[in-house]
C-alpha cells in the first residue's frame, strides 16, 4: 500500500518533539518551548490523518503493519498495526494533544518546557499502546506512559498532588505487573509475544481464567472499574487541566482498549464465563458511582465520577458480547474522549479565573460569561447523552444492546440517562444560572479567542459525531464482527 511508516511517525514524532522541547530548557525560553510544542502536536496530528483516509474499512486485518526485530533474545518484535478497533484512538489522541498544548499556552507559566514535553511524550507513548501488536511492546508503552502523567500531576497539580500522583502510579503499576505475568505465561505456552498469535492460541479453561483475571486487574484499574476506581477522583482533582483532559480522554481508554485487544480474544471462554461478573461491576459503576457524582461539591470530582460511570458503560458494552454492545462501547469511548476533555477544559476555564472548583463558589456565571455558558451547556448536554450530541450515540447503542442481552440489565443501564442528566444539569444550574453569587463571579471575563478556539473545535466534534456518526462506526463494523465471531466460537472446542 504505502511505505511511509505512519504509525511509527505517530509514535515517535511527539516523543522526539517532546525531547526537543525539553532541550529548550529554562522558562526564559518559554515562548520557543510553546511554539515547538504546538508545531510538534500539529505535525503529530497531521501524520495520523492518512491513517483514516487510507484505511480500508472492508477488512478486519491489521493495517499499516510494521514489523521489525527488536530484542531477539526475547523474541520480541517492533510490530505495529491498527484495525477498526484502534484506529480512532490514535486520531483522538493526536487531536487531544493539540488541544492540551493550546489549553496550557498561557495557563502554565512554570517549567513550561517540561510541561509541554511531558504531554508530547505521553501522547507518543499512548499512540504506541494503541498500535502495538507485540505483547512486550504494548506493555512497555502502557507502563512508560505512567511516568509523564505522574510528573504532570505531581509537578503542576493542586495542593494534595503528591498523594494523588503516587496513588495513581502505584494502583496502575500493581495492576499492570499482574498483566506482565500473564504476558510471560502466554509466552511460555505459545513461544511468542505476538498478540495475534495469542488470539489463535488454544488455551484450556483454567489457564484462560488466570489470564483473564490478570488482565482484569490491569485494565480494570486503568478503566477504572468499581471498586478499584478510587485513584481516579484524586488524580483528576489534583491534576492540572491538561492532565485531567489527557487522563480522561485517553489514559482511561487504554484500559478499555486492553479488554478488546487482550481479554476478549485471548481468553474468550473465560470472558464469556465471567461476563456476568464484569457486567455486575459495570452496573455498580453506572448506578452507584452515578449517585456518588450527584453529591459532589467539587466540579472536577463530579466529572471524574461521571467518567467512571461512563466508562462503566464501556465495559458493560464489551461484555454483553453482542455487536450493538461492543460497537456502542467503542463509540462511547470516543465520545467520552471528546466530552470529558471538553468538560475538564470548561472547568479549567473557570478555575483559571476563580482558582476554585467548588460549585458553591459559583452562580450566575452566564451573566458575565455568556459565550462560555453556551459552550458549557452543549458539553453538559452531551455528557448526559442528549440526542444529536456524541454522547447519545454511544449510550443509546449500548442500552439497545443491553436490552437485547437482558431486560433488567438494560433497565439498570438506562438509569444513567436519568442520573447523568441529574448530576450534570444540576451542577450546570448551580454554576451557571441563578443570581450572581459574589463579586468574584461579577468580575469574571468571558472566554478569549484561544479558549473559544479549543472549545469550538470540541463542540464541532461533539455535534458532528452526534449527527453523523457514520465515519466512526463504519470503520469498526468488520473488526467488531470478527472479534465477536472469534469470542463466541471460543477456544475450548479446539482443545485436543
Amino acid at each position: 500500500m504505502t511505505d511511509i511508516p505512519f504509525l511509527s511517525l505517530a509514535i515517535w514524532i511527539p516523543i522526539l518533539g517532546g525531547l526537543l522541547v525539553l532541550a529548550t530548557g529554562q522558562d526564559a525560553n518559554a515562548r520557543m518551548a510553546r511554539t515547538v510544542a504546538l508545531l510538534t502536536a500539529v505535525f503529530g496530528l497531521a501524520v495520523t490523518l492518512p491513517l483514516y483516509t487510507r484505511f480500508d474499512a472492508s477488512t478486519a486485518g491489521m493495517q499499516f503493519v510494521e514489523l521489525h526485530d527488536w530484542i531477539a533474545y526475547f523474541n520480541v518484535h517492533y510490530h505495529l498495526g491498527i484495525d477498526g478497533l484502534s484506529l480512532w484512538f490514535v486520531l483522538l489522541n493526536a487531536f487531544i494533544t493539540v488541544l492540551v498544548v493550546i489549553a496550557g499556552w498561557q495557563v502554565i507559566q512554570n517549567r513550561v518546557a517540561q510541561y509541554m514535553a511531558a504531554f508530547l511524550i505521553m501522547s507518543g507513548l499512548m499512540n504506541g499502546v494503541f498500535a502495538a501488536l507485540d505483547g512486550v511492546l504494548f506493555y512497555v508503552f502502557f507502563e512508560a506512559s505512567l511516568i509523564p502523567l505522574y510528573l504532570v500531576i505531581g509537578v503542576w497539580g493542586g495542593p494534595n498532588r503528591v498523594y494523588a500522583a503516587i496513588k495513581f502510579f502505584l494502583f496502575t503499576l500493581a495492576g499492570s505487573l499482574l498483566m506482565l505475568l500473564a504476558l510471560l505465561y502466554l509466552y511460555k505456552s505459545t513461544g511468542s509475544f505476538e498478540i495475534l498469535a495469542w488470539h489463535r492460541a488454544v488455551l484450556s479453561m483454567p489457564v484462560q481464567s488466570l489470564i483473564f483475571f490478570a488482565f482484569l486487574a490491569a485494565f480494570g484499574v486503568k478503566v477504572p472499574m468499581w471498586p478499584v476506581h478510587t485513584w481516579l477522583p484524586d488524580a483528576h482533582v489534583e491534576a492540572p487541566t491538561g492532565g485531567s483532559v489527557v487522563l480522561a480522554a485517553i489514559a482511561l481508554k487504554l484500559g478499555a482498549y486492553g479488554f478488546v485487544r487482550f481479554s476478549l480474544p485471548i481468553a474468550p471462554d473465560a470472558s464469556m464465563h465471567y461476563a456476568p461478573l464484569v457486567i455486575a461491576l459495570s452496573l455498580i459503576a453506572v448506578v452507584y458511582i452515578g449517585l456518588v457524582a450527584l453529591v459532589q461539591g467539587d466540579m472536577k470530582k463530579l466529572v471524574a465520577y461521571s467518567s467512571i460511570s461512563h466508562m462503566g458503560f464501556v465495559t458493560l458494552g464489551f461484555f454483553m458480547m453482542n455487536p450493538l454492545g461492543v460497537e456502542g462501547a467503542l463509540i462511547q469511548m470516543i465520545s467520552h474522549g471528546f466530552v470529558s476533555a471538553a468538560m475538564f477544559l470548561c472547568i479549567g476555564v473557570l478555575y483559571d479565573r476563580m482558582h476554585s472548583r467548588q460549585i458553591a463558589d459559583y452562580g450566575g456565571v452566564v451573566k458575565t460569561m455568556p459565550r462560555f455558558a453556551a459552550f458549557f451547556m452543549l458539553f453538559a448536554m452531551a455528557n448526559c447523552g442528549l440526542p444529536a450530541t456524541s454522547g447519545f450515540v454511544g449510550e443509546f447503542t449500548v442500552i439497545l444492546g443491553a436490552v437485547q442481552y437482558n431486560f433488567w440489565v438494560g433497565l439498570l443501564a438506562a438509569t444513567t440517562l436519568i442520573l447523568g442528566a441529574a448530576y450534570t444539569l444540576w451542577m450546570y444550574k448551580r454554576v451557571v444560572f441563578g443570581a450572581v453569587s459574589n463579586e468574584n463571579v461579577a468580575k469574571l471575563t468571558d472566554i478569549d479567542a484561544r479558549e473559544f478556539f479549543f472549545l469550538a473545535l470540541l463542540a464541532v466534534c461533539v455535534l458532528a459525531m452526534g449527527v453523523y456518526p457514520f465515519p466512526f462506526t463504519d470503520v469498526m463494523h468488520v473488526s467488531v464482527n470478527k472479534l465477536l465471531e472469534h469470542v463466541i466460537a471460543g477456544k475450548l472446542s479446539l482443545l485436543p
Partner: protein
Amino acid sequence: MNFVVPDFFPATAEIFIAVMALVLMLATAFARNIARGLAYALAQFTLLVTAFIILFTLDIGIDRSFGNLFVNDLLGGVLKLVICFAMMIALLYGRAWLAERKLDRPEYYLLALLMTLGMMVLITANHLLTLYLGLEMMSLSLYALVAFDRDSARSTEAGMKYFVLGALASGLLLYGMSMVYGATGALELPAVAQAVTGGTANMKVLLFGLVFLVAGVSFKLGVAPFHMWAPDVYQGAPTPVTLILSSAPKLAAFALAFRLLVGGFSGLVEHWQTMLMLVAAASIVLGNLAALVQHNIKRMLAYSGISHMGFMLLGLLSGVAGGKADVTVAAYSSAMFYAVAYVLMTLAAFGMVVLLSRAGFDAENIEDFKGLNRRNAWFALLMLFVMFSMAGIPFFVGFFAKLAVLKAVIDAGYLWLAVLAVVMSVIGAFYYLRVVKLMYFDEPTETAPIAASAEFQVMLSVNGIAIAVLGLMPGALLGLCRTALQASVIAG
C-alpha cells in the same frame, strides 16, 4: 612429579594488575609530592589496560591453567571486563569527594587495585582454594576501604562490623569447603561436580557443607537473612567506598555463586534451589519493606540492593528446572544481565549522591534531593532514569532485567515466586517514586549550585543515558550474557 611451567597467557590480565599494584605502591612511595595524582592516574591506567588485555585474551573456548586452579572462559572475561569498567567509573566518581576530605591517599587506589585483582581471581577460579583466595583478597581490601576514613567513628565502626561479620562468613564458607573436601576428596570444582553427580560422596556431609557454602555466598551477596551488615556498612563507609562496595563486588558474588553452585553442585540443584528460593524471597520482601522507612539515601539504596540481589538470585535458581539446556542458559543469563544492569544503576545512583555532596557536606539524606529539578534539570532527569529503572519501569534497563528474571521464573514454573516478586516490586516502587517526588514536586531547600568536574559530569551523563539506551536496545547485552553462559554451562 615433574614441574610443568604453567601457561601464563590466560592470566595475563591478573598478572598485569598485580604487577601494577606493586608499581603503584613503589612509585607513590618515592614520588611523595605528586603521589595523590599519580596514584589516581596509575590506577585508572592500569584498569584501562587490564580491560584491553581482557578483551584480547577473551576466548570463546575454555582455557584451564595452573594445574586446573584457574579457568579463563567467556563468562569470566565478560564479568572481568564489566568489573574493570565499573571500578574505573567508581574511582572517577569518588576522586573529588575524596580530595575534598583529604582522603585521596595512594593507599586508596592501591586497595582498589588489589580488590579488583581479588575479584578477578575469584571470577576465574576453578578450584575451591582459588575461589577462597580471590574472595579474601577482595574482602580484606574492602574492609580496609570501608574504614578508610580513620578519623570518622562511623567509618571505623562500619569497617569493624564488616570485618567481623565478613570473617565469620568466610569462616562459614571455609568450613563448608572442608566438608565438601571430606565428602568428595576433591577441591577442584569439576572434580567436585563429578563426585557429587557420581553419587559416591556421603550425601549427609555434602549437604551439610552445601548449607554453609550457601550461607557464605549469601553473605557476600548481602541477601537476607545474611544482610545485616549491608545497611550499616553502606551508611558508615565513605560514599565513594559505598559506591565501590555496591557495584563491582556484586558481579564477583554472582560469579562466586555461579562457579560454586552451578559449577560444583549442579548435582544437588534441587537442594540449593530450595535454599536460594527462601533466601531470594526473604530478601525481596525484607529489602523492599525496610527501604520504605529509610531517611538516609545510602541505607535506602542498601536495602534496595538487598532486594535487587534477591531478584538476581531468582534468575539463578530458575535454571535446571525443566532440564532443557536453553531454558537453563536463559535463566542464568537473566541473572547475569540483572547483575550487570544493577551495577550500572547503582553506580549512577551513588554517583548522584556523590555529586550532591561537597566539602563539609554529605548528601546523605533523601531530603537532600529536594527540588533537584530546580537546581539542575539535567541531573534530576538522570536520577529519574535511575529511579524508574530500579523500580523496573520501561523504557529503562531495569525493566528488561526484571522481565528476563520473571520470564525465567515463570518458565521454571514458580508462579508463586513471580507473584511475590511483582507484589513486592509495587511496594518497592514507592520509595523510588518518593525520590522522584522530592526532586520534581518539592521546592529546593538548598540553593548551592551543583559543581563537579567536567569528566565527572560527562561520565555521570553517559552512565544515565546508558540506562535509557540499554532500556531501548537491551538485545545486544542480553545476547552477550547468553553467549557467555552458554559456553560455561555446556562445558559444565
